[in-house]
């Protein structure tokens, strides 16, 4: 999809964050040379379109003591994976959950759920809870812990030239 030039300018102006001032949207609108009403309308539309997921804050899991994260992966029957995925994704300790293709024979898993906890025992407890929810629809599962961040580049919208 192609963004309207004004929407693109909004993305570029806000992707590093909103100013922490009493009227943050007014400040951004001023910078862009549009009215605050137009900015709020456009933000509202971008949210409805799914371009903006939400406007808020991202906490640092590690600083909140959630130092253990496990990527739990599950081989769930195709007929019920979406229905069960919605339930797993809504669990309070699951931050991301996706259906992805299997890569047989090496990788039989089609449901991924990222679980955060204060330690590996807690992550394992949560893995058990998910296993109970999936029940017999799940044929196999595994858990992969991240041991090292090898690269982390923030996703940034590139400036369009010309």
């Amino acid at each position, binding site marked *: 999809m192609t963004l309207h030039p004004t929407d693109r300018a909004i993305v570029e102006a806000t992707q590093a*964050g909103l100013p922490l001032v009493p009227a943050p949207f007014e400040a951004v609108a001023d910078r862009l040379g549009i009215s605050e009403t137009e900015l709020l309308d456009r933000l509202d539309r971008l949210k409805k379109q799914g371009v903006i997921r939400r406007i808020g804050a991202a*906490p640092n899991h590690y600083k909140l003591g959630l130092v253990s994260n496990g990527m739990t992966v599950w081989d769930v029957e195709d007929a019920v994976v979406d229905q069960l995925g919605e339930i797993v994704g809504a669990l309070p300790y699951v931050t991301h959950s996706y259906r992805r293709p299997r890569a047989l024979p090496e990788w039989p898993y089609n449901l991924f759920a990222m679980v955060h906890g204060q330690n590996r025992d807690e992550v394992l407890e949560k893995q058990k809870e998910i296993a109970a929810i999936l029940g017999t629809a799940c044929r196999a599962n595994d858990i992969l812990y991240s041991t*090292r961040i090898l690269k982390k580049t923030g996703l940034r919208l590139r400036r369009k030239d010309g």
Partner: protein
Amino acid sequence: MTSDLTQLDRDLINRLQEDLPLTNRPFAEIGAEFGVSEQDVIERIKQLKADGILTRFGPFFDAKELGGAFCLCAMAVPKKRFDEVLTQVNAHAEVAHNYERTHRLNMWFVLATESEAGIADTAEAIERETGLNVLLFPKEREFFIGFKVAA
């Protein structure tokens, strides 16, 4: 760590993982929810950011909706070759995140490219350079986007 957080900090961290109201004075509205002033809310957010407890405050965009393609990829890298392969993989600007994980598939990275074709091209280039398979795990469906880390 968490022990230094006040109840207001915890309330704000939890509340700010939901949506900010699209109004002229959003912090005043959030303050009203917790019985504190607009200025208190702004100051606490500034402090939580300065302490690294909040990493970012603002709109979160769906990268795919902005245009471009994304794909989770995994490789089984022999231990002896890990550093060498890591250098080859990370040299690609398209590799956005890369994590070492506890599995035979021990290198997991996200490719971010301008187009779908760019994903296949980059994965093939990595396979050529490393002589190792790159498994592609594109997102087929995302379940309930929650950013719910209870503080």
